[in-house]
């Protein structure tokens, strides 16, 4: 009854934790606690990953994440970070348009310097 359910949840565990009830019971309890905690953590991690991607995408155009978001808030563009990160990955031209909109609303960054110096070596 309970043992069957526990062994079913303990599939793939290491060592005796998948075979012996005393160890498996502990490990399964811990696993369920972790999964409860991580269902909440996953939302945080995904948001932080979207922010990293948006940051990388905007820095390619000379704007950093903070100024970009500030410009978007000023223009009342309510796209969320998930959509913005997808745009930055797959729709580069649309993303550039958004970056320009943000830059017009809140000019806070210096332009990207032109390539010079090392280009003469290569």
């Amino acid at each position, binding site marked *: 009854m309970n043992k069957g359910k526990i062994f079913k949840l303990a599939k793939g565990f290491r060592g005796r934790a998948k075979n012996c009830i005393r160890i498996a019971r502990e490990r399964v309890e811990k696993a369920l606690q972790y999964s409860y905690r991580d269902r909440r953590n996953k939302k945080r991690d995904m948001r932080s*990953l979207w922010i*990293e991607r948006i940051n*990388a*995408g905007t820095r*390619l155009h000379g704007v950093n994440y903070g100024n970009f978001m500030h410009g978007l808030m000023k223009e009342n563009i309510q796209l969320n970070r998930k959509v913005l990160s997808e745009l930055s*990955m797959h729709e580069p031209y649309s993303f550039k348009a958004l970056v320009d909109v943000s830059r017009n609303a809140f000019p806070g960054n210096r332009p990207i310097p032109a*390539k*010079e110096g*090392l280009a003469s*070596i290569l």
Partner: protein
Amino acid sequence: MAAAPPAFTGNLKKALAGLRRINLDGLRWRVFDAKGQVLGRLASQIAVVLQGKDKPTYAPHVENGDMCVVLNAKDISVTGRKMTDKIYYWHTGYIGHLKERRLKDQMERDPTEVIRKAVLRMLPRNRLRDDRDRKLRIFSGGEHPFHDRPLEPFVMPPRQVREMRPRARRALIRAQKKEQANRAAAESAKDEEDGKTAKAEIKA
């Protein structure tokens, strides 16, 4: 610039080590020039590029950084008295065997290790760290054997250099004036010698 690239002197085997292990399609080859750059500031930029954090397709579980080639590692500069005072410590595991080495000595032994240590210690300590280390190639001179690859120079972001403190600035001005005086004295001494030899030739 070089139509016929200069022959690469140095350890070709070490430069090409492990290239087969890296999945190279789609990666760019970025070239960093370390001449006159400050050690830590350059290393942090290299670490960002090596992790792939400047690409919008960054994923933390996938290793997607660009290949980084660093040139002129022996011309790296450090501020303050770090050239003589920065000490690298390591412990061998035996009791009492804490070894140390100064930056100056390390630069004489192997200048590439200085940059490599700096960058490696800025990468996150996870399972991708060794793969990222493999993508980093450092050369102490200006030559490298990768001329057939599509190379891109890396432009360092503009930096706000703090203005010198008054005491340091006065010391710098004093040193400059002393150098000028020495040079002037050397030139005048040389002119006198030339004058004397010329007169000797005329007399003889």
